[in-house]
C-alpha cells in the first residue's frame, strides 16, 4: 500500500506540473511536449486504477498518434512564437473568475457529500476480460464509434480536398 501511495503521489505531481506548464508555455511545441508528459502520467494513473489495456491505449493513441498529429500541424503552419496569451487585465480577471467558480463548485460538490470517502477495492481488469466484455455487451456502441471515426476520416479528406481544389482554380485568395 505504501509503494502504491508513493507512486501515486509521484504521478499526481507529474500530471499537475506538466498540465500547468502546458497551458502556460507560450511556444506551442513546448506545450505539446508537456501535454505528452501529462498524458503519459495519466496513462500510468490508469494502470494504477486497474486498467492496463486503457493505459496502453492512452499511451499509444493519445500520447503517440494524436500528439504527433498536433506536432506535424504546428510545424506545417508557421505559428508565430509570440502566440501568446491574452494580456488585457479585465480578460484575465474574467478567465480567473470562471476557473475559480468552476473549481470551487466542484470542491463544494465533493465535500458536501459525506459518502464520498470510499475505500479502495482491489480490482484489475485484464485485456482479455476487457475485450470479451466490450464485444459481448457493447458491440453496438463500438460499431457506432468506429463509424464515427470513419465519418471523421471522410470529413477530414473532404475538407482538405475541397480547399485544395479552390486553391487550384484560384477562386478565393
Amino acid at each position, binding site marked *: 500500500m505504501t509503494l502504491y501511495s508513493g507512486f501515486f503521489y509521484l504521478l499526481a505531481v507529474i500530471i499537475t506540473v506538466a498540465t500547468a506548464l502546458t497551458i502556460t508555455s507560450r511556444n506551442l511545441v513546448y506545450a505539446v511536449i508537456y501535454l505528452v508528459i501529462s498524458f503519459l502520467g495519466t496513462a500510468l494513473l490508469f494502470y494504477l486504477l486497474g486498467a492496463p489495456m486503457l493505459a496502453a491505449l492512452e499511451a499509444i493513441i493519445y500520447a503517440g498518434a494524436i500528439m504527433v498529429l498536433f506536432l506535424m500541424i504546428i510545424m506545417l503552419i508557421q505559428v508565430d512564437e509570440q502566440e501568446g496569451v*491574452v494580456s488585457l487585465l479585465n480578460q484575465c480577471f*474574467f478567465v480567473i473568475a470562471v476557473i475559480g467558480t468552476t473549481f470551487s463548485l466542484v470542491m463544494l460538490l465533493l465535500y458536501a457529500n459525506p459518502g464520498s470517502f470510499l475505500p479502495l477495492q482491489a480490482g484489475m481488469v485484464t485485456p482479455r476480460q476487457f475485450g470479451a466484455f466490450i464485444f459481448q455487451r457493447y458491440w453496438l456502441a463500438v460499431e457506432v464509434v468506429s463509424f464515427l471515426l470513419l465519418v471523421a476520416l471522410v470529413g477530414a479528406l473532404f475538407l482538405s480536398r475541397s480547399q485544395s481544389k479552390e486553391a487550384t482554380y484560384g477562386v478565393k485568395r
Partner: protein
Amino acid sequence: MMLFLSSQLNTYLIIGAFLFACGIYGLLQHRSLIGMLISGELVLSGASVNMMAFNRFLAPDPTVGQIFTLFIMGIAAAEAAIALSIIIAVYRNYKTIDAEDLQDLQG
C-alpha cells in the same frame, strides 16, 4: 485518513477537476486555434480520469466504466482529426490561425 490519499475517491476527482479547470483556462486564454485545441484535449483527459475513478471506486463490475474512457479516446481522435483539418483549411484561406483575426465573415 490523511496518509492514504491515494485510496480515496476524492483525490482522483480533484485531479480530474484540476485537469478540467486547466483545460478551460487554456481554452479561454490561448489566442491561436491550435492552442485552444490542445486545451480541449486537457478537458477530455479530465473527463476520462473522472470516469476511471468512478469506475474503480463505485462500479460493481470494474469493466463498465472503462468503456466510457475508451469511447472518450475515440471521440477525441475524431475531434482532433476534424478540427486539425478545419484549421488547415482556415490557414489556407486566411494565412493565419489567430482567433482574433478570424472575426470577419467572407462569402
